[in-house]
């Protein structure tokens, strides 16, 4: 049984996430230690040495990102916590916010100290109504204990944290769209460069970090970067919370070393397949990543191994599909999502997501044409690598993977003018 780090407190079912309980279990000791023993630059170096990579989806090394922020103390800087969790199949940040909010707040304090900012925002998706209320409450309590506000613990370091609710837009999980939304505009992504570290919120230096990424910080500070990097692989360090859903017996969040084998995650921790059925497909990192199959079950879940297998670690959202699943229908549902969520700025994405959705719906409804499979690949090819943000790639690459591994199913739909699975899948 591997050690839980982020979810250790949650192993106690009675843990209520209050500041009293958080303090009683070692909470807010990391920020006290950091303020006493580290200058911001040494804290950045410590996090860099830990090898911590972003847990939102991109997996960018956190310490390196922090290092891009200009050191000029006269500049106003911002830390933004990305709590917009919207990648289909992902539900780990919700648990962290709902059940242990002070862990996140302490992480935000550490990140803010490291980059030298005085204001931090938590951009939380609008639908997390209870989560926003819990954060507001936790911030009040932390302030009452002087862990927030002016001159924290007599260190001279001051920071305010404000939650900011989104209003229903997947694209606002993309960091530059998030910043546009925080500025009170539509969530239209910006061209990068410049990157937020130099020109972010209000075009000032900004670091955007995912909830889970930030939650790791107190532990890294207290136990050291060598301890953290002893878990996982040299390039993918630490644990990860995998959200497992779909046709498994025990869907849920599982914190495990990041290099756990997929087979172990699905069959040991998540209880294996429901109803004695056979595994057909696995999406290993949220709907934006290419699908994998039974042949990939021995792949480990770290960034490098999944990339080598032709997919990506992404958000850690693992969606498991059994033999009753129609992969054309899966493609249609996924395409419908990206079509809905495309912000519309880029022609390839705006038109491509609509076209993919329309075409896949036609095929699923039995009105597919022979030329459709080449058409789908052609559309995908035109959508990749040519847009302001990666939503277009996120829509195209999965469809390519469904065609690669399940092309015969698509052909059957077209030849038979019907979905061969119509009576067996959930819909």
């Amino acid at each position, binding site marked *: 049984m591997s050690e839980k780090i982020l979810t250790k407190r949650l192993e106690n079912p009675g843990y209520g996430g209050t500041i009293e309980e958080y303090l009683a279990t070692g909470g807010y000791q990391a920020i006290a230690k950091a303020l006493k023993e580290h200058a911001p630059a040494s804290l950045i170096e410590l996090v860099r040495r830990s090898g911590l990579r972003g847990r939102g989806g991109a997996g960018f090394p956190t310490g390196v990102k922090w290092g891009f922020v200009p050191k000029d103390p006269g500049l*106003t800087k911002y830390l933004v916590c990305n709590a917009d*969790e*919207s*990648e*289909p*199949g*992902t*539900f780990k*940040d*919700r648990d962290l916010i709902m059940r242990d909010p002070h862990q996140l707040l302490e992480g935000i304090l550490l990140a803010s100290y490291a980059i030298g900012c005085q204001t931090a925002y938590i951009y939380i*998706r*609008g*639908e*997390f*109504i*209870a989560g*926003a*209320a*819990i954060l*507001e*409450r936790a911030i*009040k309590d932390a302030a009452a204990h002087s862990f927030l506000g002016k001159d924290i613990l007599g260190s001279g370091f001051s920071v305010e944290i*404000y939650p*900011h*609710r*989104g*209003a*229903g*837009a*997947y694209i606002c999980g993309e960091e530059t769209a998030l910043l546009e*939304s*925080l*500025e*009170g*505009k*539509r*969530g239209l992504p910006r061209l990068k460069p410049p990157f937020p570290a130099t020109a972010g919120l*209000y075009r000032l230096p900004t670091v955007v970090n995912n909830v889970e990424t930030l939650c790791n910080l107190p532990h890294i500070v207290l136990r050291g970067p060598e301890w953290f990097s002893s878990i996982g692989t040299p390039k993918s360090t630490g644990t990860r919370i995998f959200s*497992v*859903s*779909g*046709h498994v017996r025990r*869907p*849920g*969040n599982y914190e495990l070393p990041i290099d756990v084998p997929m087979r172990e995650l699905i069959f040991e921790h998540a209880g294996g397949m429901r109803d004695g059925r056979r595994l057909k497909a696995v*999406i290993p990192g949220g*709907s934006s990543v290419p699908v994998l199959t039974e042949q990939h079950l021995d792949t480990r879940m770290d960034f490098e191994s999944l990339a080598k297998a032709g997919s990506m670690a992404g958000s850690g*959202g693992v*969606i498991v*599909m059994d033999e009753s*699943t129609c992969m054309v*229908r*899966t493609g249609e*549902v*996924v395409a419908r*999502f990206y079509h*809905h*969520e495309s912000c519309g700025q880029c022609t390839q994405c705006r038109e491509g997501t609509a076209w993919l959705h329309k075409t896949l719906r036609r095929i699923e409804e039995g009105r597919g044409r022979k030329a459709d499979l080449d058409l789908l690949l052609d559309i995908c090819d035109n959508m990749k690598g040519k847009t302001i943000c990666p939503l277009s790639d996120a829509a195209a690459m999965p469809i390519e993977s469904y065609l690669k591994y399940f092309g015969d199913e698509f052909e059957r739909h077209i030849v038979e003018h019907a979905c061969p699975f119509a009576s067996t899948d*959930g*819909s």
Partner: protein
Amino acid sequence: MTEETVQQILSRYPHHRSALLPLLHLCQQEAGYLTEEALRLLSKRLGLSPTQVVEVATFYDMFHLKPGGQREIWVCHNLSCSLLGAEKVVRRFEEALGIGAGETTQDGLFRLKRVECLAACGIAPVVQVGAEYYGPVSPQDVAQFVERLRAQSAVSNQGSAFLPKADG
């Protein structure tokens, strides 16, 4: 929405435009939707053109520019929920409420919406009503679910589903 509340929100941001989303949420909470008057007031208050306010109001899924139900029933139809029968769940809600997804019941009590991933896939299929998440919701559960919602609406004067209570 008191002036004090507005000031408290404005004070969180160095630029007033950032207060647009929180203020839109408040306006919608009060009237059940974003009235034209509210949008005009906001544009004046924040020094924005009406276009700048409306383009934001129409961009985000949670905002409505037309009246709807007192409460919203959101049914996720994204992948994990679909795999576990969400389409059937949507159809049962449509039957139990007598409306299509996207529509509001005659008595003005409920609007039914298909929504994208609610980040609760561990309890798929997921339904959200106000701040509450429900799941796994099976098609057989739906009729009783709707009855309970109706009973709740009958006894309490439910405010908008959209904001947490002031005392958190």
